[in-house]
Every structure is written in structure tokens, then in C-alpha cells.
């Protein structure tokens, strides 16, 4: 699993959801969590953290947000050399087939549909870790 000092970026337009995710992550032993309220703010945070040498390791993002959608943040990250290999989890109430296909084509690591239980989130995160670990070993 990801090491306890892994730096997560949690992106959601609702503070409650960011807090709920932080609580679940805290229970898993992860406390290094940075928040952003939309895709635009998230991208700026990614750049800022990268520039100061404290780069984000994993992105957990909502889909439906003002300014920049989570799917557009995902596409932007995949086009940006510094961020394209970052594990990217979409955690969203959007659950239509076309959306999931769009996300998978865009390179999402895992797609988690709200409502979710802490256990579901934990299992998905383990899956992301295994996938990412396998990918970096090959590379």
C-alpha cells in the first residue's frame, strides 16, 4: 500500500466531502492531504507543490465542479509531462456509462462512484497502488 507519508491532493467543490475523505484517509494512516475546491485550483496546487519540491503523489478528484471539471483536470494532467504518470482517482456521483468510458479512455486509474463506504474507498486505493506499482516496475 502507499506509504504513510504519501501526499494526496483531494479535489471536491464541497468542503464536507473533502473532510469526509480526509477522515477516511486519516483512519488509514494518511495525514499528508492537500485540498482544492475545483479542477483549476487543483492544477495550480499541483504546479505549486511541484515547484517547491513537495510534489503531489496521488490525486483524488470529484467530477462535477465549477470552473474546471474533474474529467478536464484528468485530461490536463495527462497532457502535462510532470503529472501524466500520477495516479488519478475519480470519486464522483457521475456514474453514466459514457462518462466512465470517457474517464477510462483519458487514463483514469480508478473510478469510484458516490455513494461509497470507507471500505470501498480503501479497496480502490489498494488497487490503484498495485496498478501503479506494477507500472513503475515495468518502466
Amino acid at each position, binding site marked *: 500500500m502507499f506509504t504513510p507519508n504519501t501526499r494526496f491532493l483531494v479535489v*471536491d*467543490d*464541497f*468542503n*464536507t*466531502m473533502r*473532510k*469526509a475523505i480526509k*477522515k477516511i484517509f486519516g483512519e488509514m494512516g494518511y495525514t499528508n492531504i492537500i485540498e482544492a475546491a475545483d479542477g483549476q485550483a487543483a492544477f495550480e496546487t499541483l504546479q505549486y507543490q511541484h515547484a517547491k519540491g513537495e510534489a503531489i503523489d496521488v490525486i483524488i478528484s470529484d467530477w*462535477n465542479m*465549477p470552473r474546471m471539471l474533474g474529467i478536464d483536470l484528468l485530461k490536463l494532467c495527462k497532457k502535462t509531462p510532470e503529472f501524466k504518470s500520477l495516479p488519478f482517482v475519480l470519486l*464522483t*456521483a*457521475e*456514474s*453514466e456509462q459514457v462518462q466512465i468510458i470517457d474517464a477510462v479512455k483519458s487514463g483514469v486509474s480508478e473510478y469510484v*462512484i*458516490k*455513494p*461509497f*463506504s470507507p471500505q470501498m474507498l480503501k479497496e480502490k486505493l489498494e488497487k490503484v497502488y498495485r496498478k501503479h506499482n506494477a507500472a513503475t516496475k515495468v518502466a
Partner: protein
Amino acid sequence: MSAANKINIHHPFMDGVIIQSLANGVVEALKIMVNIEASFEKPFVGTNWKSPTDFSVYLNLNSDFYRGRIQFHFTEMVAKTIVEKLIGSEVIEKSEILDGVGEISNIFYGGAKTKLNSLGLNLAMSLPKPCLTKDLPKAIAETTCMLIPFKVLGEICYVEIILN
């Protein structure tokens, strides 16, 4: 009275499947996210209906066929309990309750939208807007609405559908 502010009994939104998907969206979200049981009561059509609750969330309904609004109404105790269970700590500020009911309504709507769009309704994404029930901005066709009451923690909350 114009045809615009009437919900006809034959209107697709009066369909059992649609009401059921909205109800299921709510029950499932509350069960999975915060482990709270909810049960639905008999839906009814309201005329000049005013919600007796404290907190509300409205989302614009936009599809190829329909325009309108979906609103979720919560009593203060229910809203506060849901938010506290979500974040795992006590909530004091009203702004925190508003934020929390906004997100849970987003989840209620998300599940229903997927089901409804699989039936061909083609509803667009919508950003939920929470407010105090007394501050709810008027929807255009407000005279008639469809109401689905649900019981949570012993109190009645509502899903309201307004169609233009």
C-alpha cells in the same frame, strides 16, 4: 391556469420507475455513506406547497424534454446528523450543514440521473445549490409540484420535483 404549471398524471415524471429511482438514490446514499435508514412514504402532488423543513437544496433539471427543478428538503436534526456522520465530528455552523446537505443531495441526484438517463431522459449535470428552506428562490412553475416524502431518524424530509 396555463398548461405550464400543471403536472399531468400522465406526465413521465409521475411514472413509478422515475419516482422509484429517485427514492432508491436517497435510500442507497444514506445507507452507504452514513449508515442511516430511510423509508419512502406515498408521493403526492402539492399545490402552492411550502416545505416545513429548515434546509433545502435545489438542482436545475435540464433535459432534451424537460426543464424544471429538483429540490431536497431536510429538517435541521436530519441535516445535522447526516453531516456529522459524514465528517465524523460535531457541526456547529449553519454553513457547514448547508455544505453537507449540498453534497449529499448531489449524490442523491447523481444516482437518480444515471438511472433516468438510461431510460433516455438525457438529463444534464447540475450543480446543487443549498440554502435555508425559507430562502429558497422561486422556481418558475411553482404552483404545482410532485412530492416524495421520506422518513429519516423519525422525521419527514422531502424530494420535490417542479417542472416548467
